[in-house]
């Protein structure tokens, strides 16, 4: 067979250069496409999160319609607003499994404690691993712009004597009516969001609640001091990692699971200052802000850059402040 005949039958393939060029073009196209897809996906997640808050806001209004007041921020045995809202979120079967005379961690409430409610989960929070027997939550009710966790004490000598009472719509045994909100329901936050923690005090995560105790200089007298401490705190110091069970279980009415404060700016480090002073706040995985459901049932996206006075005004139900943003 002559050399020319062989050449005539051979199939011409791609050269290495051609292949590399094609691969490079595909890589560039993928590089352009992936961020765009991620952006669209996050926009969809943010909308889904906003819808969850809308559902919970409507459930609050339905609860108010049937009971004549909003649910209490937490019951005497620390059961959450979320537990009280279940019948208004089409979760009656879980609601029936809750014994409201028993604490969140009692054996009687084990089934409800582990029941996943999709409406309580923000799709942008991709931390989905939860300790066994618990179910997660990203949404919290607003206790106000103060830092007192309980009610004002009456016993002389209590370190929290003289601290102002919670001024938000949800606190211990609260039963606020919409007409009690003299700031107006459209100027008062009902719910916002927070990322779940890492459930391990041996790991530093900014989404955890930092435990500061009565260490010198780290016991705030008011919300301004709480903001200063939160801003200067070293989040990597494991000595401050005291509450990593953040965002679960939803049945627990607690400052790191179902309640937040408007004392410090959104995305500040959430802190607890025992005895009795707390400044957990709102944060999210959404770019640049958090979703907030107002007491009128609407949902707004509040930017991270919101001014502290406006954020605090949004937290109080009857503070008389004017919100200009």
């Amino acid at each position: 067979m002559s050399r020319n005949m062989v050449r005539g039958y051979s199939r011409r393939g791609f050269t290495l250069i051609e292949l590399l060029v094609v691969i490079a073009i595909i890589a560039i196209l993928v590089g352009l496409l992936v961020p765009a897809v991620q952006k669209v996906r996050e926009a969809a997640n943010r909308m889904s999160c906003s819808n969850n808050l809308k559902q919970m806001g409507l459930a609050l209004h339905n609860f108010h319609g049937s009971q004549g007041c909003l649910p209490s921020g937490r019951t005497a045995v620390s059961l959450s607003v979320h537990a009280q809202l279940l019948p208004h979120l089409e979760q009656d079967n879980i609601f029936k499994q809750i014994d409201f005379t028993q604490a969140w961690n009692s054996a009687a409430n084990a089934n409800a404690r582990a029941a996943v409610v999709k409406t309580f989960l923000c799709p942008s929070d991709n931390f989905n691993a939860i300790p066994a027997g618990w179910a997660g939550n990203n949404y919290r009710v607003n206790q106000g712009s103060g830092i007192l966790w309980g009610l004002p004490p009456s016993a002389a000598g209590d370190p929290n004597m003289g601290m102002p009472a919670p001024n938000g719509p949800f606190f211990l045994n609260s039963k606020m009516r919409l007409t009690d909100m003299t700031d107006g329901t459209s100027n008062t936050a009902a719910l916002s969001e927070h990322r779940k923690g890492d459930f391990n005090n041996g790991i530093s995560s900014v989404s955890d609640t930092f435990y500061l105790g009565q260490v010198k200089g780290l016991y705030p007298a008011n919300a301004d001091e709480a903001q200063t401490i939160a801003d200067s705190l070293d989040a990597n110091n494991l000595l401050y990692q005291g509450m990593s069970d953040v965002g679960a279980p939803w049945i627990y009415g607690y400052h790191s699971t179902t309640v937040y404060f408007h004392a410090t700016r959104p995305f500040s480090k959430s802190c607890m200052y025992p005895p009795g002073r707390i400044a957990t706040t709102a944060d999210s995985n959404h770019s640049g802000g958090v979703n907030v459901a107002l007491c009128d049932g609407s949902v707004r996206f509040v930017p991270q850059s919101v001014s502290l006075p406006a954020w605090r005004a949004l937290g109080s139900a009857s503070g008389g402040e004017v919100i200009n943003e």
Partner: protein
Amino acid sequence: MNKPSRFGVVGLLLCQLAGCGGQSVMELATTPDEAKSTLVQALDAWKNGTSQKDLSEGKPPVFLQDPLFARGVPLQGYTMENEGKVVGTGMSYIINQKLKGDAGKEAKARRVAYRVVTRPNRAVTLEEGIP
């Protein structure tokens, strides 16, 4: 035992990549033995007058988070009330403590719960509102 089908595995992987994985269960961040020995190590160190800073810089470092320990209140003695139970990713122990009282006053008794994890770091944390 049936092998998982190739399509099932690929489907699960795609589902995870698409972000529809749902809630999964976390593993414990300790074992009962590790947790108990870490708790004993931390409380013994407190009893022997070790400071919070020194304990956290020891080998291995132990992070004991208790406001009274942080403030240097001396621990005179303690007893473990139970053998611990799993709470979250750690073990929770109820401890009866005897703390030194103020000058001229009797020792103060305290009943508290500590949560212990040992991985990746050893942390002993006072549990709020429990027991």
